[in-house]
């Protein structure tokens, strides 16, 4: 496959046109969404392409970090949409995503699994942050809804002289598991059901499939750790907010 140019991109608009035709023919009425989505993704990706070129050329550590921070903040905003009943959810989720992601990327750089260059850090950071964002959203929703819907069980444990930590431990574990469930399922079926993104990209770019597989393994483990750390941090910070210092459920 040749590297795609503007001609190929324009030709691929035929695929969008067929999708619009399908929507119109069966009266699904998503033509407008398809059109807006196609234009928006085109503009966003072109802009990101230029931005990445700029960042890769400068190769500034501060610019790399700033990019990761911005990605985390945008991710936290997306994860926050469904969160209720806790104080400063944006701050809490941003911190959790950054902690999980930066810790993972930092460890990989220290272990020299990856080189600290924009070309590697930015795309891998994007994967880590995207997965951490989903894990944070799922975990935080699970812990808040579980504690509130099991109020009687939690207060029974408290009334027997148990700490808030013991009273909420089962829900803590369930919430962390919920955040990790997607990556755990992915790890079970990876390569058998679908080829993952990083590997697909490398193979399409002409890399040896075995090299692509090695990278994919690293990516999976990286996402696993980031998701585990993010889920634990976000649930820990959230569950503390649901109780008073006197071990009372708010």
């Amino acid at each position, binding site marked *: 496959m040749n590297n795609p140019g503007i001609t190929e991109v324009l030709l691929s608009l035929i695929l969008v046109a067929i999708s619009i035709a399908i929507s119109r023919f069966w009266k699904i009425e998503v033509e407008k969404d398809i059109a807006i989505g196609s234009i928006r993704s085109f503009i966003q990706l072109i802009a990101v392409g230029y931005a990445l070129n700029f960042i890769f050329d400068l190769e500034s550590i501060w610019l790399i970090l700033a990019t990761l921070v911005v990605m985390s903040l945008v991710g936290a905003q997306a994860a926050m949409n469904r969160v209720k009943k806790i104080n400063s959810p944006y701050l809490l989720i941003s911190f959790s995503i950054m902690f999980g992601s930066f810790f993972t990327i930092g460890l990989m750089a220290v272990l020299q699994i990856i080189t600290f260059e924009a070309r590697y850090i930015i795309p891998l950071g994007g994967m880590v942050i995207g997965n951490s964002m989903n894990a944070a959203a799922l975990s935080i929703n699970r812990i808040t809804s579980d504690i509130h819907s099991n109020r*009687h*069980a939690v*207060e*029974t*444990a*408290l*009334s*027997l*002289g*148990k*700490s808030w930590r013991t009273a909420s431990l089962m829900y803590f574990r369930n919430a962390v598991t919920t955040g990790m469930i997607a990556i755990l399922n992915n790890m079970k079926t990876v390569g058998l059901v679908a080829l993952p993104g990083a590997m697909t990209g490398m193979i399409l770019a002409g890399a040896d499939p075995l090299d692509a597989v090695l990278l994919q393994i690293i990516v999976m483990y990286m996402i696993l750790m980031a998701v585990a750390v993010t889920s634990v941090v976000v649930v820990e910070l959230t569950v503390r907010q649901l109780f008073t210092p*006197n*071990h*009372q*459920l708010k």
Partner: protein
Amino acid sequence: MDKPILNISHVSRNVGDIKILSDISVSFYQNKIYAILGPSGSGKSSLLRLLNRLDDPGSGEIIYNGKNINSYPVCELRKKIGYLFQTPYLFEKTLKDNFLFVDKEISDDQIAALLEKVHLPQKMLDSSVEKLSVGEKQRVAFARLLLTKPEILLLDEPTSALDPSITESLEKFIQEITLKENLTTIIVTHNPEQAIRFGQQGILLSGGKIAESGDIKSLLESPQSDAGKRYKARELS
């Protein structure tokens, strides 16, 4: 007269703009059973929750054994002032697990002795809690509460889900254990007959305030307050 084991002084509690309890002052003494009576929403359960520190009052103070309850480590206080909820909650999976949740070191023999106190057979030790009736669950929850070795028992309508024969035996057990273990028992009940059967002190709540308190028979048979007269007319007519 002895010092009270528990003294509530000018306690009030609001939830948002709603006044739940207002200027409650009452003393409780060792070896006695107190019945808290009153219509639904009068603040009976809310008062018990304050004593177990599941909630805190907005104003006033609660003194336990001569010290403000806030000065005790809250988890230790809750073991000493034990609370039995109206609807019992048992943890998964077996009856034995519920005792191990409170005390990891407890032996099967110790659990059996506790079960015997609430008239449940030892063979139920490994039964799944899902198979228990509401009455059995209530008795297991009671036995589990005793494991914390409380000095004060807060019982929120403990017999409301039990049939009459079990109610009678549990009432008898509550009276026995209160005397035998030198406890103070505070029972919320909707049932004036039950309050009389316990035959000691009564506190009538109305609209979050103490309408009157004292000897339970006098309180129910010849109430002095308007709220007490209304309660008598409604519940004992």
